[in-house]
């Protein structure tokens, strides 16, 4: 299950990143070679960075990549360690659920009913912000899996 999500997410991220590179290279080429800088690549690149950054952060949460001070979790053993790991995981889950999923959905909803459009591409801003609840749901998913992972960890006896 996790492997499937990891795989899909990594393929999407690779595609987004490649698209972003091509987009900005096109922007540079349009300015230097064709002498007519395009507005839409500029705006699109910003939106792509939001998507790559937040979706990538969700992926990074699943891979445990984010920087943390591991002194305490490394020091504790047995049940105490598990409780701390549960709590850390719960913190990440609460943030993703409240801010990214709930706050994100409300933001998407508000920008849709207020009919906010981007200035040059005329994309509804709701679509850009959609990455917040999407990444939030993925982080929540990874956190739930992590709970089971912690529960199934063998207890260290020493």
């Amino acid at each position, binding site marked *: 299950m996790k492997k499937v999500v990891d795989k899909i997410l990594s393929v999407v991220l690779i595609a987004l990143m490649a698209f972003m590179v091509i987009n900005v290279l096109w922007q540079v080429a349009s300015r230097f070679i064709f002498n007519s800088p395009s507005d839409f690549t500029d705006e699109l690149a910003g939106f792509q960075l939001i998507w790559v950054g937040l979706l990538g*952060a969700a992926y990074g949460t699943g891979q445990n*990549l984010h920087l943390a001070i591991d002194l305490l979790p490394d020091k504790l053993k047995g049940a105490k360690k598990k409780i701390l790991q549960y709590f850390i995981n719960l913190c*990440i889950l609460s943030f993703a659920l409240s801010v990214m999923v709930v*706050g994100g959905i*409300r933001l998407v909803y508000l920008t849709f009913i207020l009919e906010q459009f981007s200035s040059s591409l005329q994309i509804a801003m709701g679509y850009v912000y959609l990455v917040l609840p999407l990444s939030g749901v993925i982080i929540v998913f990874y956190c739930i899996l992590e709970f089971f992972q912690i529960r199934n960890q063998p207890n260290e006896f020493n």
Partner: protein
Amino acid sequence: MNLTEVLILVISFLILLSIGVPIAYSIGIASVLTMLVSIPTMPALTTFAQRMATSLDSFSLLAIPFFILSGQLMNKGGIAARLIDFSKVIVGRLPGGLAFVNIIACMLFGAISGSAVAAASAIGGVMNKRMEDEGYDRPFSAAVNITSATTGMIIPPSNILIVYSLASGGVSIAALFIAGYVPGLLLGLGLMIVAGVIAYRKKLRGGESVSISFAFKKLLDAIPSLLMLVIVIGGIVVGIFTATEASAIAVLYTLILAMIYKEVKIADLPQILLDTVKTTSIVMILIATSVGMSWVMSYENIPQEVSSLLIGLSDNKIVILLIINLVLLFVGIFMDMTPAVLIFTPIFLPVVIELGVDPVHFGIVMVLNLCIGLCTPPVGSVLFIGCGVANIKIHQVIKPLMPLFLMMLFILILVTYIPEISLWLPGLFDF
């Protein structure tokens, strides 16, 4: 400023951070908890979500993933080996030569790859072994490697200076980049002096002389990699392109170079792109939540209060800069560079501007200061990598690190109190 909010912000952040919640999430949770005191729940959550997304919507931030990508493309190839050989031709014969080679290679690699961690692992991976073979002890090699790897954060192109430009509300990236050269080189030189003295006292020899044709070949090999710095920085300085455009050109250049050297195949590209996304998004989520925290702080009027508090303590520039440096050294011990720059720039920059400090100069001081934190436990990422590749424990490296640390502090004092070190070069280019 409401004391309750400030206490909630600071205390919840420190608790979350110290029990091991990832830094980006600690920042986000502490900020949202603080907002909930004075803002109703739903608007608070929505506002924070929006801050996170819009903070990344910036054309200048795009330079970060591109410089990371060009660094990744370079790392795949034999650039570390080429830069080491290049440095060896230049300084290898001096007494303690290999320590100098380590430092210069780290400076070049750090500048090209834009990553101190990458410099420590790529150069350290090769140099520790070679230095051990010639009688240098591992902790000393690792200490030299760790401290010199941080010079790449100041010598351009530098991602952290782009972050500072964002946090400061638009200080010119080009000016910051040029301003980084002299302090970065000075730091490298300072480290070489310390390493040279230690090597001399340990009676470490220099390497053997090499034939001219061999030296010429090694110099020639390094040129394509070094040319990237010339194209990118040259273009930015002369004003042909912006930092973001330069970063895209760097990607194209390194890709073509890697293809010519046959060091990267088309089939490798997806993995390289994914590695780039991983590194990028670690930085981006830190930016997203740090910008959110910075918004919460200004909503609570914290920067203004801290400013008047500091000005109230003293209106002496020397004293205020000393206090700020001490605070930042402390912050750097337990906080990563990116959030530290994003959170503390809006607080300290207005104070120092009022005292007549140039924002470009202050950016260099801040980054140089936080570089020291990269080499200290518990979150010194460069320290961990440096010890990891040298295969030694952290406590072993502390003793040889000390004299190098003192030199870093000394350079920090010089750069803080002599603005010309940072501002002379940009001045020549009319920035």
